């Protein structure tokens, strides 16, 4: 059984990516860095889908379709998130999460 022919490997990899992303979301203060981490998490999800698709799913195309949708959603999400970040920056002169929360009050 080859390393790259096992579902487990991919799932584990996705998990690692997800955890790294999660750490980023929790630890970073800059909104953009958080967005980057979120992208990592989304990619972990994509890998999962593709792996299931490759090893389990009855129709291989479906997993790819879903991955493509994830990409679209990621793009839309990034667009909106970035706009919000930029808007926040323009209002607050900072994109640091802590500052943003402080300023809300």
């Amino acid at each position, binding site marked *: 059984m*080859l390393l790259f*022919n096992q579902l487990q490997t991919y799932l584990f990899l996705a998990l690692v990516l997800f955890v790294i992303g999660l750490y980023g979301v929790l630890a970073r203060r800059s909104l953009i860095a958080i967005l980057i981490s979120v992208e990592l998490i989304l990619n972990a999800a994509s890998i999962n889908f593709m792996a299931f698709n490759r090893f389990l799913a009855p129709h291989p195309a479906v997993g790819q379709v879903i991955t*493509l949708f994830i*990409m*679209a959603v990621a*793009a*839309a999400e*990034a*667009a909106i998130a*970035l*706009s919000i970040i*930029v808007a926040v920056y323009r209002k607050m002169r900072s994109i640091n999460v802590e500052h943003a929360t402080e300023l809300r009050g």
Partner: protein
Amino acid sequence: MEIPQALSDFWFVLVFLVAAGLFALGPLIIAKLIAPRSFGAARDATYECGMPTIGSAWIQVGMIYYLFALLFLAFDVDVLFLFPVLLAYGKGYVWRDFIEITIFIGILSLVIVYAWCRGVFSWKRKQVNP
């Protein structure tokens, strides 16, 4: 399906990427070895038309670039969906494919229309502090 078919393509890609990297790296190393060095107070200073720079270059660029990047994002994603559809186009549908593509593109074009109406394409400087 021991080894996925796509992998044989992957080999080519990998080898070429590595080769390109080495190809680019080689002359750089040679240059490091055979080039003389110069000294001077301003040698390592940032070039700005012969004057010392004022402020950092990591500047904040105009909003406009960002908006264009966003527009690009939208259209790039639509390309992503159109590519597979194009391959399937005309393979056993009556009019359905055409209509779907038209609707898809139609909706997307609204992005341009909207941006156009909002004046994204006219580069006027907006006063930041009105």
